[in-house]
């Protein structure tokens, strides 16, 4: 049976088990991970994984269950379980499933990935390691040097007549390296993910890791002060991953967002434009439809500093008397979808990152942040460990670590004073973000 037949059959099983409405979602995922070290293959991981989720409505109550195999008994059991869970849940008039709408044509699958041999992919992993080691003789250790590919085949159907399939794949690499010198040892990491086999550059990942580690050798501390921070694109992206929580409609509706009630009001510096676009070509999260089967769309969240709206799933949209923006996402097939960003990007500015740096009187060029997961998107407070390069009068003075940068996310957006033109896509905090180098003024830096 093909994937679409399987989900349609599961919907029928749920209806037969007493569901008033039902939805089934199936994801088959093929993974390949190659990890090398010291010129040898350490681990090759390959698998085909599958998960099927059923959501059942009993009146206005919803429950979810799932299965990890597709034999008829498992599908029946998951369908019946979803109905039972729904019956134990609370009624909510806004609960509902997506209506069938045609999805955009998205080229999410690159057939090249399947055409190349495993041997060639192993060489991609070795190329990452070689590039790191050749970058500088002080690169002493490499760890977790990995090339990976992931292909997903998804199908969804619901009792409103929705039925869709999509196929996506991506590839990427990761490296962790240690640079060692008389002053001590420092770690650097590199990573990239691409939607086209040919677009991935293993050398760039190795060099990124090595350059970051070497640049930190001899790092010292700075005194406690307020100063500027320049965030490299990956660090800006990390912040965007947290700020994304403020524009999730579920958080807004539960009074867990500082952006509640702020549509039409300035929430960021002029020039700041944030866009979510599920179908954005080449972005890591590019897809035709979201995890409820709603077509991907482009949603402007902040335009020139002014909040335009929020990101919706079917449920939050019904509650807000709006339309879903195609932002439903399942963290796992075992959990119900939430309203989450898809490809979330800060629009590029005009200048180069070097030009931004040249204008800094005193500040930290942040190249690594620690403890991102402890940011509090509800209060907006954050305090991260930071390291990077100290800048005075536009010039790099030397590496700094052991400091924290602290503040509030709302101030972060309002104090954005410069946006460079180097937008880079990456995965951050479980979503796909596109971010350039940015400059923020007047940030708390705690040190010695």
């Amino acid at each position, binding site marked *: 049976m093909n994937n679409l037949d399987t989900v349609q059959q599961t919907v029928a099983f749920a209806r037969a088990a007493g569901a008033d409405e039902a939805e089934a979602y199936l994801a088959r995922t093929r993974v390949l991970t190659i990890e090398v*070290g*010291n010129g*040898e*293959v*350490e*681990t090759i*991981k*390959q*698998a*085909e*994984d*599958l998960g099927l989720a059923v959501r059942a409505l009993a009146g206005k109550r919803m429950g*979810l*269950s*799932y*299965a*990890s*195999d597709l034999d008829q008994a498992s599908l029946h*059991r998951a369908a019946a*379980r979803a109905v*039972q*869970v729904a019956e*134990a*849940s609370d009624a909510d008039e806004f609960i509902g499933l997506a209506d069938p709408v045609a999805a955009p044509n998205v080229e999410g699958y690159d057939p090249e990935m399947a055409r190349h041999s*495993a041997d060639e992919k*192993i060489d991609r992993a070795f190329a990452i390691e070689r590039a790191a080691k050749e970058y500088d003789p002080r690169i002493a*250790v*490499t*760890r977790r040097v990995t090339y990976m590919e992931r292909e997903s085949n998804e199908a969804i159907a619901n009792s409103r007549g929705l039925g869709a399939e999509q196929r996506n794949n991506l590839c990427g690499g990761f490296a962790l390296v240690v640079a060692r010198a008389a002053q*001590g040892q*420092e*770690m650097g990491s590199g990573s990239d993910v691409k939607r086209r086999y040919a677009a991935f550059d293993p050398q760039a990942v190795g060099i990124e890791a090595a350059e970051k580690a070497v640049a*930190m050798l001899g790092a010292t501390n700075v005194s*406690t002060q307020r100063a500027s921070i320049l965030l490299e694109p990956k660090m800006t992206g990390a912040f965007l991953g947290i700020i994304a929580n403020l524009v999730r409609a579920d958080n807004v509706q539960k*009074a*867990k967002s*500082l952006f509640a009630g702020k549509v039409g009001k300035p929430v960021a510096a002029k020039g700041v434009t944030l866009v979510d676009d599920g179908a954005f070509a080449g972005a890591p999260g590019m897809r035709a439809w979201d995890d409820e089967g709603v077509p991907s769309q482009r949603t402007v969240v902040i335009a020139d500093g002014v909040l335009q709206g929020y990101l919706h799933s079917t449920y939050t949209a019904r509650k807000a008397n709006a339309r879903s923006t195609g932002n439903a996402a399942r963290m796992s097939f075992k*959990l*119900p979808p939430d309203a989450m960003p898809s490809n979330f990007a800060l629009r590029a500015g005009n200048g180069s990152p070097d030009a931004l740096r040249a204008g800094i009187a005193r500040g930290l060029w942040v190249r690594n942040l*620690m*403890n991102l997961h*402890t940011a*509090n998107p*509800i*209060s*907006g407070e954050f*305090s991260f*460990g930071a*390291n990077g390069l100290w800048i005075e009068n536009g010039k790099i003075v030397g590496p700094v*670590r*052991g*400091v*924290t*940068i*602290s*503040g*509030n996310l709302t101030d972060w957006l309002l104090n954005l004073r410069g946006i460079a033109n180097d937008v880079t896509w990456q995965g951050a905090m479980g979503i796909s973000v596109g971010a350039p180098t940015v400059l923020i003024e007047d940030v708390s830096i*705690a*040190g*010695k």
Partner: protein
Amino acid sequence: MSLDPNDLVAALNAGRAHWGDFAEIFAERRADTSIVLDDGRLDKMSAGEEAGVGVRIFHGRTSAYVYTTDFSRDAIVEAMRLASAAAKQRAGTGATLVAALDRNIAPRPLANYRQMPDGIPMATKVAVVRNADRVARAAGTTIRQVTATYSDYIQDVTIVNSLEEVAQDRRVRTVFRIDVVASDGDIIQTAFESTGGLAGFEQVAGDVGERLARLAAERARRMLRARPAPAGTMPVVCAAEAGGVLVHEAMGHGMEGDFNLPSKPMSAFAGKIGQMVAHPKVSIVDDGTIPGLYGSLGCDDEGVPAQRRVLIEDGILRNYMHDRTTAREMGVAPNGSGRRQSFRHTPMPRMSNTLMLAGADDPAAIIRSVPRGLLVKQMGGGQVNIVSGEFVFKVQEAYLIENGAVTEPVRGATLIGNGPAVLKIIDLVGNDTGATRIGTCGKYDQGAPVGHGIPTVRIPEIVVGGIVAGVNETIT
């Protein structure tokens, strides 16, 4: 979906041609229930089961891992064939890096779970979150939002390998967590409490949820009148109830075997077994055998029985935490640290319950010893850079210490320091036993349930990241 060791041994034997230098089958079945009450209503409810098999084959130093959700003997043999072919195509030249377990260690009997969650009606589990929500909201009009989460799972694993080792374990974990948002109109503060254990429904039965709801609500309200934490270097006292994120991040990770391999030394603790790495008052263990604790297990995910590992004894580094491959490279027996998130993941050295042992100092005297500093009453999440030793963790609840007395609450503090350096300067260790708090430890792409705790300790000097006062102070 058989986890019967006989079936798995039969499958292993049927694939004997593909064993390479070492072959292992990890089979898992797991049933989860998850209930989230948010915004006053049951927001997300799910329950289900999944199962899968992971096959690992070594050729020399090279391993391949293949997993499948198909439990048939044919599927398992096919996975072994695929893994063997993958490992062989670029097999390294070195010796196989897999150690046998020390047969002198007797496997512990499977834990005795008093109230298996699959025998508890959904309505009883729902009542836990509803009661907690009610109690938290009753704490005051400043309580603006409450999220109460209940989850449980039953995980059965069977591990068989070509060393003729067979192990089985049943891990039942039950967790409750409450998150509270308080606001007085200007300031928003959040607080949480959680409990979890290698335990059945008894972990949260009775008024556990309500008690934690009250604590969290009170803390959120208290933090509303807290000023932003000071920034800069100062003495910090961590109270015994604060939890052990400090030992987990600043010390524990650096003692995981994979960061200390002679071929790839990364940690500041590499090559230092037998050396003084901490103040003589400091002793740290990682203990997976304590009944009921969240990080405990019968055996690890390579089938090695859980153990109590002494990491630091009176300041001297004694052991690392090993899985089979790191143990082999270091020439020691694996000590029960090989954990994996699920059948989809390969094992690596992980902590279980990491605890700093009680010392001899009077906790009240420790606080009195500080002229001006910070008292940490509850820690939040943390992270460490293994290579530089730098660690950082969030503080959920803290107070100023002024002239040896605890004064006003402060919010938003973060501690940042160097693990090996902090270990050496911790100079007062309380004679009290810390509360064991729970967390999900993330390493690379895998999560693992862990516990951690410390007695009251004094760190004479550490950077407190807070808000630096300035002319443009705009803290909301």
